[in-house]
């Protein structure tokens, strides 16, 4: 079953076409990598899927809801973690968990159970009352991810979640992503790191607002006769006209 479906989805800002007729589907429980250089249109596409931005044309459904008319329902069924750090540094670990749980309408009982479970899984039980600012970056990011899926969404959107994190912590972070995918949560992730692209079930590569390639990493590598995803990416991105925002 598909949790994301788009057909010729387009977004223009004036005469500039940021996203140009993209059509793709993402299945339930899939880890879908959304790749592209800066300015390729990744963020704009993601914002449309999250209900933050109205498309110029084309159609799309997220978690079975229309991205034009049913953005409120979409928001209830998705989680989101931004590339900027999305927790409150001046709140304690448990306060952050409760805040986001509260925003997604979890009951008092659910909140308590979720908080305990989350702290146990992340091995943060001793840090319950620590201000988030005082945590190392890797822990913050794991916590941010866990908080983004606290309401068990159908899909979680991750916008460059591992920027600035060392490889070991990145690996640990991906373990959390796998665990979420096993529970049936679809993961839609944008990244700059090509080694991370290899962890995805399927990846799409956007160039100048269009999706130029979409397949599993191994299929892409063989069709581009490349040794790794980095080479695939460069083979496609070389032709890009838009370089930066």
């Amino acid at each position, binding site marked *: 079953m598909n949790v994301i479906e788009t057909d010729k989805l387009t977004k223009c800002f004036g005469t500039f076409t940021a996203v140009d007729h993209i059509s793709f589907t993402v299945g339930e429980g899939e880890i879908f990598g959304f790749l592209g250089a800066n300015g390729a249109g990744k963020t704009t596409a993601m914002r449309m899927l*999250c*209900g*933050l*931005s109205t498309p110029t044309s084309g159609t799309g459904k997220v978690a079975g809801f229309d991205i034009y008319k049913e953005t*409120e329902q979409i*928001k*209830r069924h*998705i989680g*989101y*973690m*931004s*590339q*900027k*750090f*999305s*927790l*409150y*540094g*001046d*709140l304690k670990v448990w*306060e952050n968990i*409760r*805040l*986001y*749980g*509260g*925003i*997604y*309408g979890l009951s008092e009982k659910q909140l308590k159970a979720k908080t305990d479970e989350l702290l146990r899984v992340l091995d943060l039980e001793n840090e319950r009352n620590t*201000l988030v600012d005082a945590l190392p970056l890797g822990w913050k990011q794991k916590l941010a991810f866990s908080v*983004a899926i606290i309401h068990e969404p159908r899909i979680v*959107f991750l916008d460059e979640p591992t920027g600035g994190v060392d490889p070991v912590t990145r690996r640990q972070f991906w373990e959390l992503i796998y665990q979420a995918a096993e529970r049936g949560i679809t993961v839609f992730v944008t990244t700059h790191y090509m080694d991370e692209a290899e962890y995805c079930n399927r990846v799409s590569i956007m160039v100048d607002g269009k999706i130029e390639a979409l397949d599993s990493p191994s299929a892409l590598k063989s069709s581009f006769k490349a040794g790794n995803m980095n080479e695939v990416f460069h083979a496609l991105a070389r032709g890009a006209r838009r370089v930066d925002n």
Partner: protein
Amino acid sequence: MRDSLAAFVRKEFLHIFRDRRTMMILLLMPIVLIILFGYAITTEIKRVPVAILDQSRDEVTQKMISHFVASEYFELYKMIDSEEEGQALFRQGKIRMALIVESGKLKGENEIQLLVDATDPNEATQLSAYATQIAVESGKVKVESENANSNAKPLSPFTFHLSPDQGIAPVIKLLYNPQLRGAYNFVPGVMGLILILICAMMTSVGIVKEKEIGTMEVLLVSPMKPVYIILAKATPYLLLSLVNIATILSLSYFLLDVPINGSLLLLVGVSVLYALVALCLGLLISTIADTQQAAMLISAVVLMLPVILLSGMVFPIENMPEILQVISNIVPAKWYIIAVKDIMIKGLGFGSVLQEIGVLALMVVVLVGLSVKRFKIRL
């Protein structure tokens, strides 16, 4: 939705409580301002040194001089023997006013000359007004004023005459603030300033901070409606500004003896309305500014300066060039300060401040419309 709003309001309070320094500033600022304006930066005239030359020494002038010396505005520096001596004292900066009573040309009629150091024109005006008042109170006098500073010396005292008179006697009665207490003017001004500062500046900085650290994006993707995000942000600052109003009012009432003649409820109501205008301004600024520093700077320049300069708090609006008078109409603080003075000092009721309330309410509507429009465009 109510639960998530509650969770969000709680979070906003935590932000404020955790930031001890800012909270201390917010709570102490009104106290410091009231004390500063009440005791240090005062425009009131007190114990100005005066030299007196009495050539007449009759009963009426003696009575007047004793009135002068007894008043808290003036202090006798020296009884002098000649006008030249007075001029010398002016030049040395020992005195700021000289009172010269000439001997009566006709029986029972004295001419009184007042020399005032007019280097500070506002003070000179006030001094001569006080002096005239005292002279009027001490006997039937006719006031004849005459500006004698055409030959502008570096120090140009302005002169006018008071002469006893059988006929017309002006009776001056100061309404609402008979002692000409400066506090009656600045307390409403400080309230106007504090509310703008806390509601507009803190709200705009608070919202922009969320944009900066990236949490705003996460909130916008959540089912939380933007209007709730804003409501939750505004609530703590609204409450904090109510605390500040209470602080200012009790300080001014108990410490500075400023009365609250009108309805306290109406006063608080108008203050809340003004706080809403300030919150909306903060919201609008947050849609323009991208960094906390920018938000702070815009708040300071666009909000605080007009409050200080154009609201009538420091400089009387009536004395401004016409163009500034017109501009002052869009400064919310102007209307708020008028309303607060009407309610607090004059003790007027709801009907008298209807215009001010109407203008402030209109501002809320316009600002809400503008910010909502801008907020949407940014998405």
